[in-house]
Each structure stands twice: as C-alpha cells, then as structure tokens.
C-alpha cells in the first residue's frame, strides 16, 4: 500500500465521519383518531417539544370527530334532529364556522359538493361504521329525496341561530370535516411556533415549510391495484387531497357502488376512480375533491376553476390520467409503465 492510497483511505474515513454529523430532530407520531389514521410529522422538533403538541392535536381531533359526526350522537346529530322542524335554534360554536364555510364552498361548486344530502348518503347505507351490505335503494326511494332538493342554501344563519326551509336537509360533513380538521391542526401547530410540518389525515394532507434541505415528499397511491402511482414534492403551504371510489364501497350482484353520491342523480358518481386536488387550504381541497369526482372526467375543469384549486390530477375508470399543466411539471410517476396522460387547459 503506498502513501497515496493511504491518504485516500484516510480522506474517505474523514468524509464518512463528517457525514455522521447529527441531523436536526424530527418528531413523528401516528394517531388513530377522527375515524382514521392521522400522521403528524414535525421537522426540527424533538420529542420533548413534539409529544405534548401532538397530544393536544389528538384531543382536538377527538373533539371534532364527536362534534361533527354524521351518525353518532353529538352536536351535529342534535342539529340534524332539529332542522326538519323548521324552527330557529342555536348551533354549537364549534359547528357554526363549519356550516358557514361549507355553504360557501357548496355555492362555489355549483352544488356538486353538497353536505345537505345526508339523507341520500344514509339511504345508500354509507352513514354507518360498517360498509353497506346492499341491496341498493330503489329509484322511488332516491327520487323521494331528490324531489325535495336538499341544498346548503336551505339553511339560514343569523348570528348563532340556524333555521332550515327544507325538512329534507340532513347534514353530513363526511366530504369536508377531515379537511377542515387538518386546517385547524395546522393552525394550532403554527400558533405553537412550528414552521415545518405535515398533517396527514387518512391520506389527505396539508404540508407547511419543508423537510430541512429538501421539500416534503408525497406519494400518491394507485387507485387500482397496489403501490404508489406518482410522487410530488410539496413545500411552503399546500394541501393535497385524494378522493377515490376504492375508499368505501359495496358490491351487490356483481356491481360496485361507491360512497361518493352525485347530488343530481342521487346515485354513486361515475366515470372516475380517483381525483387528487392541490389547494392552499385543506377544507377547500377536501370539498373540491368530492365536487370534481361528481363532475366527472369531462366536466371537472370549470368546477375546479370556480372552486379556486391550484392543481388537479385525476384517474378515470379506464386508468387514463388527466392533469392540469402546472401539476404535470411536478408529478413524477413511480410505475414502470406510466399511464397515458392528457394535459388539460390551464386552470
């Protein structure tokens, strides 16, 4: 062994030692709350600071879950009991902003995101902890609810008081509460001085800041089969929400019925298998993911524009992918054979 080799080896050893320099801490906890799994990642935060913060988030999520639950007894349950009477009554303070914000987003979506169709969702059996076992409801049953046109515009808020014009209105925030809750969690983290974090509630997430020297890396699961369809890097402040027909469904006599109900037909929305929405707020991303799923593969673009989302990727029933130009530049397919992609007009 000559001197040069020896020096090279020494240099290599020193480089390896430099690489052993301690990285900033990262606090990661998985919570089984809100009827789902909530992942919280805090960069540059150690366990001493992170653990009590996440414990607080867990309490918040549990509280929101009980308050906003569509079919468990709680604040929303009480509101749903009182609404059909047509009387004016006071709403709990935690429910009021949720109703206001969902009214606004429902209007922007042209009614495709419609949390007032709780009766339809229950009729299909999706307002239950267990998946429906079928059979699907009859046309007459669906028609009976559709004809009474439940909508968020039937609700009238005055201060803390609420009244419904339409006895058919039953609120179900299944397509919205998770997004709203993620926003509240991010708010609370920011109040505590957290700059870099991801809150991922059952696959729907909002990320702020970055992961040290790099952005946050997000994988998007394939709606059919297994594994990851694509990945995207996120930093600053962005929400990424996916709605899919694979999340909740039931099979009846060889036909699949998924949980996203089209308020126009009263039946499960058709044409898409998943919609991923990028937006600056999680509640908007959540509501928009449902609205675009309902709009379908041909008509989603105007709805996306009206709702004000920043990017869309969707996968149709045949596995073809459509996306907005800005997202095409950011998406990296993780499959050996990437699917066919159609780039839409700009938002």
């Amino acid at each position: 062994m000559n001197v040069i080799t020896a020096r090279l080896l020494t240099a290599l050893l020193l480089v390896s030692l430099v690489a052993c320099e301690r990285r900033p801490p990262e606090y990661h906890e998985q919570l089984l709350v809100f009827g789902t799994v909530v992942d919280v990642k805090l960069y540059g935060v150690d366990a001493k600071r992170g653990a009590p913060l996440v414990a607080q988030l867990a309490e918040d999520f549990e509280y929101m879950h009980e308050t906003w639950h569509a079919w468990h007894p709680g604040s929303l349950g009480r509101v749903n009991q009182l609404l059909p009477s047509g009387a004016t009554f006071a709403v709990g303070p935690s429910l009021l902003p949720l109703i206001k914000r969902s009214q606004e987003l429902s209007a922007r979506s042209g009614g495709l995101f419609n949390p007032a169709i709780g009766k339809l969702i229950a009729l299909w059996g999706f307002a239950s902890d267990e998946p429906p076992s079928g059979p699907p409801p009859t046309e007459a049953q669906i028609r009976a609810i559709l004809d009474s046109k439940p909508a968020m515009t039937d609700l009238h808020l005055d201060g803390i008081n609420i009244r419904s014009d339409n006895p058919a209105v039953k609120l179900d925030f299944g397509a919205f509460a998770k997004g709203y809750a993620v926003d509240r969690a991010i708010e609370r983290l920011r109040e505590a001085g957290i700059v870099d974090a991801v809150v991922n509630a059952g696959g729907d997430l909002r990320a702020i800041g970055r992961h040290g020297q790099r952005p946050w890396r997000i994988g998007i699961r394939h709606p059919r089969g297994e594994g990851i369809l694509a990945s995207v890097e996120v930093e600053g402040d962005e929400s990424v929400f996916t709605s899919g027909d694979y999340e909740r469904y039931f099979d009846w006599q060889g036909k699949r019925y998924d949980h996203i109900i089209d308020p126009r037909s009263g039946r499960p929305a058709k044409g898409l298998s998943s919609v991923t929405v990028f937006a600056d707020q999680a509640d908007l991303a959540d509501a928009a993911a449902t609205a675009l799923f309902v709009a379908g593969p041909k008509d989603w673009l105007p709805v996306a524009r009206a709702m004000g989302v920043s990017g869309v990727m969707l996968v149709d029933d045949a596995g073809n992918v459509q996306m907005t130009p800005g997202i095409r530049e950011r998406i990296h397919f993780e499959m050996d054979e990437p699917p066919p992609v159609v780039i839409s007009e700009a938002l």
Partner: protein
Amino acid sequence: MSGANGTRDFDPATRTRGDRVVVIVALLLLATLYGLFWRGDGHGAEAVVLVDGKRWARLNLFQDQELRVPGARGESLIRVQDGQVRFVASPCTTQQCVHQGWLSQGGEVAVCLPNRVSVRILADDPRFDAINF
C-alpha cells in the same frame, strides 16, 4: 518507502501477512456496513407494528416471518417476505388493509382501523414523508 520521520508503516517490504489480513477485513467490514446502513434508495430495512398507536413490534424486513398481532377485534396476520411487509388477513369487513398489498418504500403504511393495527416501513431518509390515498 520510508516517511520523512523515519516510520515504515507502509513499507511493502516489511508488511506481514497479518497486516494484509487486517486491511482486507477492514475493507470488507466497511463494505458490509455501507451496505447495511447507508441505503440511500429510500427502501426501508425495518418496519414497525403499532397496536392502538403503541409500538408492538419492530420487524427486520429481511427476516421472513408471519406475525399474529392481537388487535381490538381479533388477530391481524402480517407477513414479512423479501424486504416487504403486508397484511394477509384482518378481522375487518372492508379488508382495506389487505388490499393495500405489499409495502417496501420508506414511509409506506397500511392500517386496519377497526382492529387498530398498523404497519409502517421505517427508513432513515424515507422515499415518502406521507402517502396520499
């Protein structure tokens, strides 16, 4: 070759067979450690199983095995094979956890909510910080 200070550390003439063995063993060790701990491809070598949010087991993904994990409703069956892990069976009606299939990338996670059992791939620098599904 002697150094300026007169040491003969690297003089091939005086190197014994023992020296060579030491150098070779050191290099082999370096290569092995690099392979074991410096996996920069985002794949995980370990997974963690949580029950009700608490750590229940830590699994070496390169040691094939099957685990019966007692959850809230019954036993979830988790299989480790060839550096991957998956739910094979679970006492839930939707079977979403089983449909998630094999996990291998750092950050990937599968959860059986009704049984409150989850498995996640650990990695030093995970391929994904979060999975959207």
